[in-house]
């Protein structure tokens, strides 16, 4: 190749071309500083038959990182694909491997949803880290051809009493609020947990949901030689470059930019415009495929589009619009500047495409085209700086079978059961324990947080916080909608990661069922410690295996998700935290079930049975600061029966309210249901104690699974009891709603005025974080 490039700025910029790489095989390369091992570097050299250029090295280093390649987890994630039934495939339009899974929900509509982590950036720079976490997951949704319609966040912070927690909470919540509110997406629910194990490593997971007509579905594949490769959206800058700065300073002359913020900076306005622009492109049939630029930026988008396509791709980096003209080719390849998309456009579509981006004032440049060579070729300053098989970058990265070891400490931990802890028996002690749980940071009202999120925008929110799941109307004509709930319990997962993952699925599945929707599909975000620790790898393997088995048993497929490893500070890993999101459908959102009652004299039924299962419970943690034993039994068949009963009962209009039993047990559920509309109830526990052979404290605080509290109108009582009997769901009448009393009364035990419950529930977060408006 003739080198006719005219280096733009100075002669100090030299191009490490393919030609030069072939000619200088022995040049030292900073692969270790970029995170590649000796073995990985040798493999790259073998794949190319020469040393990589610095551009190729940049691409491989980011694409073969744990974050992009899933090299430690891939072996296990395959189990989700292996354990499926035909029924699980029935509604699945797109499964794992694309930007997000897509599920058919009927009437020509489909839904795409996914949960992803943005943990480390959110600790370093909470506001921008959390904000760009929302932005990234929303772009994944757009890439499928869908309109984003809602977001949720799964947040795990350190001890609420620790001063640094305030820094993280204020930043993260403001960042999510800023980005999500400015995008015009309702925030319809999520999780908030405070636990000192997350002190040095908070978890900020973000879930987004999108809807589309079947015919609008797009896959991010670069096909059709001659089609244009177009970059549009924000300009490319120096933000989000981690390893590249090392490369730049090691390999290139001084004077260029060296220190770059590793956390990206988001602009939700740019993303909002990009959403509208992309949807107009899709609906005008002006684009073949769109891929978002997230982690690894142009490296990822070009290699994934080309690898998923049928040919190759040629791209000229000089055509990339830059915020900073001094960026090197390697930095351009690795930049994680936000609010950018890459499109594949036919030559015939191009004029219309550019008209739409111009209408929305979105900057656009044609970088190159799809080729038939099977190679990804990237040029800069007239020289070829990348010439690779895109599959080797994006798909066939290294796969590790890391050592796995059952932790030596786990037997002792499991032997330390909470059943040995003293349990209250007196009414006063029971009352005190209920209030302590209700006021504990993880069970207290998160209204201080959720008040900062817009839940109304788009006008389709049928349920949101504080109900068990979020629900969105998809089709205005029929009322067809979807419900989503997420769950994870790190405490259970520490005691038994297999059961912990299954319990997260059980709870999310149940939370969807109590809204009146039928569970259909799953997404997950698997947050764990360092995979180089065999004990962490064991936890991971157990959790994935357990989750795959439970998905099979409940016949809900995993459609996609994310793995986040290295969540640890120093040598202490976080609790294994497999966040599981379940999506369900409801044929008319008008039939949704609230989590509290608004009428007097409704009968309260407890569905399911209660056992002495206090290990890992909120009661053990809050009252005794204890964590040990084995988590509650996983009862998947009972969960299925329960979900079926709720759907059938709701169809017949028998259920006025339903609220899941989870952390904090029946006590927490009763308190929340009373507080939902501020209307009281009278409850008796004697029948539970007698039937299940448990004491009062166990009846109130046990976290046995497959249980739901339902409120049934008196006139439907006979039908409801008959339905439960017919479906083999244990049902016990334990109380009645009483709107005059103004209290939650547990007969013969204690009574708590609603205002006292409210003060306990709503006071905790504002006391630490600042006053709540109107609170």
């Amino acid at each position, binding site marked *: 190749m003739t080198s006719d490039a005219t280096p733009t700025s100075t002669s100090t910029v030299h191009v490490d071309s393919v030609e030069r790489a072939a000619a200088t095989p022995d040049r030292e390369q900073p692969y270790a500083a970029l995170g590649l091992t000796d073995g990985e570097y040798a493999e790259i050299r073998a794949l190319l038959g020469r040393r990589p250029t610095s551009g190729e090295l940049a691409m491989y280093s980011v694409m073969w990182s744990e974050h992009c390649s899933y090299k430690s987890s891939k072996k296990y994630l395959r189990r989700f694909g292996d354990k499926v039934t035909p029924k699980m495939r029935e509604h699945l339009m797109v499964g794992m491997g694309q930007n997000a899974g897509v599920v058919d929900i009927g009437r020509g509509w489909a839904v795409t949803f996914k949960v992803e982590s943005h943990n480390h950036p959110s600790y370093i720079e909470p506001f921008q880290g959390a904000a760009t976490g929302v932005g990234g997951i929303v772009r994944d949704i757009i890439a499928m051809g869908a309109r984003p319609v809602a977001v949720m966040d799964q947040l795990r912070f350190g001890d609420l009493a620790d001063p640094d927690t305030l820094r993280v909470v204020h930043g993260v919540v403001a960042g999510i609020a*800023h980005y999500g509110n400015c995008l*015009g997406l309702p925030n319809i629910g999520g999780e908030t947990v405070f636990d000192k194990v997350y002190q040095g490593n908070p978890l900020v997971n973000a879930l987004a949901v999108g809807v589309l007509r079947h015919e609008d579905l797009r896959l991010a594949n670069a096909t059709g030689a001659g089609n244009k490769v177009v970059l549009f959206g924000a300009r490319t800058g120096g933000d989000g470059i981690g390893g590249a700065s090392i490369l730049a300073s090691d390999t290139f002359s001084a004077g260029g930019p060296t220190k770059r913020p590793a956390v990206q900076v988001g602009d939700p306005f740019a993303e909002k415009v990009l959403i509208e622009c992309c949807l107009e492109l899709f609906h005008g049939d002006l684009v073949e495929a769109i891929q978002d630029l997230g982690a690894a930026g142009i490296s990822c988008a070009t290699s994934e589009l080309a690898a998923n396509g049928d040919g190759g791709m040629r791209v000229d980096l000089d055509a990339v619009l830059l915020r900073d003209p001094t960026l090197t080719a390697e930095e351009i390849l690795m930049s994680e500047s936000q609010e950018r998309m890459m499109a594949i456009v036919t030559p015939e579509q191009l004029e219309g495409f550019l008209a739409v981006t111009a209408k929305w004032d979105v900057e656009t440049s044609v970088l190159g085209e799809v080729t038939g060579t099977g190679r990804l070729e990237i040029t800069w300053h007239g020289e070829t700086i990348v010439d690779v098989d895109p599959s080797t970058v994006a798909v066939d990265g290294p796969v590790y079978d890391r050592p796995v070891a059952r932790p030596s400490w786990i037997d002792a931990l499991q032997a330390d059961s909470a059943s040995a802890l003293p349990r209250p028996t007196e009414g006063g002690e029971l009352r005190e324990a209920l209030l302590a749980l209700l006021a504990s940071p993880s069970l207290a009202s998160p209204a201080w947080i959720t008040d900062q999120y817009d839940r*109304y925008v788009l006008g389709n929110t049928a349920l949101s916080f504080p109900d068990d799941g979020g629900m969105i109307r998809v089709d205005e004509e029929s009322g067809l909608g979807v419900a989503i709930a997420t769950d994870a319990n790190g405490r259970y997962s520490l005691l038994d990661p297999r059961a912990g993952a299954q319990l997260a699925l059980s709870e999310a599945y149940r939370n969807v069922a109590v809204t009146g929707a039928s569970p259909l599909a799953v997404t997950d975000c698997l947050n764990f410690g360092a995979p180089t620790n065999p004990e962490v790898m064991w936890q991971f393997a157990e959790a994935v295996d357990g989750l795959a088995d439970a998905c099979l048993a409940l016949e809900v497929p995993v459609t996609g998700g994310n793995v986040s490893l290295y969540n640890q500070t120093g040598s202490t890993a976080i609790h294994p935290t497999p966040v599981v999101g379940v999506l369900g459908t409801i044929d008319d959102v008008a039939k949704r079930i609230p989590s509290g009652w608004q009428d007097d004299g409704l009968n309260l039924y407890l569905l399911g049975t209660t056992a002495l299962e206090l290990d890992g419970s909120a009661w053990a943690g809050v009252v005794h600061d204890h964590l040990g034993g084995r988590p509650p039994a996983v009862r998947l068949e009972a969960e299925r029966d329960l979900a079926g009963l709720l759907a059938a009962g709701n169809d017949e209009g028998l259920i006025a309210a339903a609220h899941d039993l989870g952390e904090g047990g029946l006590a927490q559920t009763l308190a929340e249901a009373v507080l939902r509309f501020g209307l009281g109830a009278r409850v008796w526990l004697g029948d539970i104690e007698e039937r299940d052979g448990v004491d009062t404290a166990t009846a109130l605080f046990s976290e046995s699974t497959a249980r739901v509290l339902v409120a049934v109108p008196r006139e439907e009582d006979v039908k409801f009891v008959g339905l439960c009997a017919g479906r083999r769901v244990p049902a016990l009448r334990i109380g009645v709603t009483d709107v005059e009393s103004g209290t939650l009364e547990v007969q013969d035990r204690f009574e708590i005025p609603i205002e006292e419950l409210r003060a306990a529930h709503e006071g905790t977060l504002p006391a630490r974080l600042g006053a709540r408006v109107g609170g």
Partner: protein
Amino acid sequence: MTRIGVVTFPGSLDDGDARRAIRLSGAEPVRVWHGDHDLQGVDAVVLPGGFSYGDYLRCGAIAARSPIMTEVVAAAGRGLPVLGICNGFQMLTEAHLLPGGLVRNDHGAFVCRDQRLRVEQAGTAWTNAFAGGEEIVVPLKNGEGGFVADADTVERLEGEGRVVFRYLGVNPNGSVADIAGIANDRGNVVGLMPHPEHATEPGFGPDTADAMRSGVDGLRVFRSALAALLAA
């Protein structure tokens, strides 16, 4: 059928909700584009909520200088009913169709809540379907909703009966004199921070004592415009 335009700016978010509310009130919603100079002969205009231009410079400042606003200002001068909701209210003050301004909430954070309001003035184009003094509940959601004006302006607004909505119970953003919404002297231009379009459809509004999310108090804001146009 009465046609009510809803202007979409880059960064408008509640434009679809405003169009739905107009439809539910019995009028025909018309999409109007910020970059045009054409109001398409509509009978009234809504400037919807959102973060037009990312709230760059000041909320509503850039949108207030967009091509369509030239037409909106001129039409408002001829008596066309104009409603500015949230970001739309900010645009109306930036365009000097309404006095005062909106600043960051006194507590510093974005807030979303079901807000009690009193309809102080039922004589405007957008409130004639209410009774004066009536109490309603409408969602509020903003980060920069604190209404400010100098003492003379506030006194004039109060004296001329141009305070249209007032916060009840809680002042959610530090607005002077609990002012939630105001009108121009003719009563055809109204701006308010709360979102009446989010309380127009049973199932998707604020909770009421009777049923979850069933509040539709906002519907009468849009019905008022229809009544005003019929009377004109």
